[in-house]
């Protein structure tokens, strides 16, 4: 029976329930939830484009002491290639040539004769940063797109979350359990409040 009485930790009255009340799951979904849906297969990519992508991944992602490993780089590549499937087809197809163009940026920026994937990571990162401030809008947009695709994958990896002290799953499970208790009519307790973590907010 949903609670209708005033919650002792709330300054607000609980409204009447809507016609349909969705209960929380017993276990909040983790990675690759088993809802029958499958993520798209990675977009096929030739060896030159994959080398270019790996070079850009190395340039865009942080170096140790931030989390880094070859396995992580492979997972990011895989994530980007899956992501390409969800883009509009014309963008997905255009992404490969864009990677090759960026790989040869040292040449067309008159910074060297080697492609980016042969550069050390720090100068590669600096060159990519310089391109992001280019006066040419298409160049800036290229960097924006590639950055978003690569970094959204990097910052979604378990070891990166660990290094950031970001642990969403226990928190979500705790909240799902709390909502189930509220739906059963149990009042919220003081320990159910979130924070305050900051001294200035206490």
């Amino acid at each position: 029976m949903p609670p209708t009485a005033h919650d002792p930790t709330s300054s607000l009255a609980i409204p009447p329930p809507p016609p349909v009340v969705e209960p929380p799951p017993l276990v909040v979904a983790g990675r690759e939830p088993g809802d029958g849906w499958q993520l798209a297969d990675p977009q096929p990519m030739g060896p030159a484009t994959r080398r270019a992508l790996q070079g850009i991944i190395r340039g865009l992602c942080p170096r140790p002491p931030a989390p880094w490993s070859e396995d992580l780089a492979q997972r990011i590549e895989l994530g980007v290639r899956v992501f390409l499937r969800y883009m509009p087809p014309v963008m997905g197809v255009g992404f490969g040539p864009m990677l090759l163009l960026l790989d040869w940026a040292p040449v067309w920026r008159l910074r060297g004769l080697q492609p980016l994937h042969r550069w050390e990571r720090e100068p590669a990162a600096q060159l990519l940063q310089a391109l992001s401030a280019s006066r040419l809008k298409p160049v800036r947009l290229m960097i924006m797109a590639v950055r978003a695709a690569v970094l959204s994958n990097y910052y979604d990896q378990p070891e990166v979350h660990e290094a950031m002290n970001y642990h969403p799953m226990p928190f979500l499970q705790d909240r799902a359990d709390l909502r189930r208790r509220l739906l059963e009519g149990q009042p919220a307790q003081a320990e159910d409040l979130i924070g305050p973590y900051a001294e200035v907010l206490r």
Partner: protein
Amino acid sequence: MILAHNDYQLDQQLDADVVIVGTGAGGAPLGAVLAEAGLDVLFVEEGGYHPTTSFNPYGTESIGRLMRDGGTTTIQGRPLIPYVEGRCVGGSTVVNGGMSWRTPERILQEWQQLTGAPELGPAGLEPYFSRVQHDTAMAAQLEVSLGDDNRIMEAGARKMGWLHEKNTRGQYLCVGCNNCVMGCPTGAKSSTLVTYIPRARCAGARCATELRVERLILEGGRCVGVQGRAINPRTRQRDKLVTVRSKATVIACGAVQTPHLLLQHGLGRPSGQLGRNFLCHPNAKVLAIYPFDVKGWQGVSQWGQVRAFRDEGVLFAENMIPPSAIAALQPVHAQPLWEMMHRYNQMVLGGVLVEDSTTGRVLRGPLDMAIPRYQITPYDIHRFISGVERMARMHFEMGAERVVLPFARRHFATSVDDLANLDQVVRHPDDLDLFTVHLMGTARMGTKPRESVVDLNGQLWDLPGCYVSDASLFPTAIGVNPQVTIMALALRIGERLADQLASRAA
């Protein structure tokens, strides 16, 4: 019954009394009304069916599954404005913040005056707003859902002497997971996935998912259904042909995809307004980094709004998102980004929302691509600069160490001194980084065929049997989150359509 790609034959034929293209705030309430009236309803949804039990906080999985084009959609213009809309059962209601504000009364009065229709005025729409309020359990949040980023915004507003109002949100016993944009993992947010869709399904409605509608079927000057192709979830290629024949067809694909679909048939006559009047309620993100833990990812998104500048058409709200999404938006990478991101627990993300002062247009591009175009005005630029400056100042007042600004020529501020002369920093619209989720107004509703695209029943003036039910209908900008307005109009159109079909059957 929910159908997916595997369930379709190579050339699949389906029939229904009403086919509704889209399952979001426009399609689902209307479908529930029709199904509960005893009609055979078939929803068609381009995305997949993802129940509450499947939602997680991982962007690389959720964004592709739940958002159109993996969130890479942009509005063309200066600047380019990225936008996000849902592509899954429940549409954008699955990935929005759940903010539920009724249309402001002054806007409804304007609509009544503009159209001459009392039905679109405050009294005419009141019963529908009340129903939406009940159906989606619109209410302020429980105290247990409050997080530190919410507290900072509220305390900051108080310190600055600004009006801060608690948001009304469509939710029942929300406990502040802050996973709204990746799908609510507790089922508390009243997305249509957990409200109107279950009601419609209980009343017998079916849902054909993973199916992109490509064209309308026109016969004898009437719309008699839709045709589309199923999307293979592994290759994302469109393969199987699916044809749905119906007595009435409702297009509820949102303010970009609805005109995109209708424009290929040369519709929108005689006004020529189809695709025009595009509104997008743009916003600019302000990211503050504090010297202490805030854990903004815990606690509800948008507990409240700073409404002190509503007369200028400007709102502020906090709106934390997962690290993968924050990182993708930053102007730096490699070590400088890591130095920021490893302090994710100390971040507060907010938005400055600016009410439209102009309109854009949605065009039909090649390769089945919709092209929304929108150009912000000098007045908008001024409001963004002053809004961002105010919000950043508030964060410094609250003790922030650093604020990331949405300006290409000055991304970082470390004190209020860095907020000086911002109007000189933004020399060109391209110097602004904007974003939006509120797309509206491309098939405006009205009483005169020469001024509007659809009549007061939502039916196209130039195509009997074809109806629109989504944010495209708005005659003007509303300046608040549009979900409630869309749902109210959808209930109204659904009721009228049910009456029409019943009288036709009789």
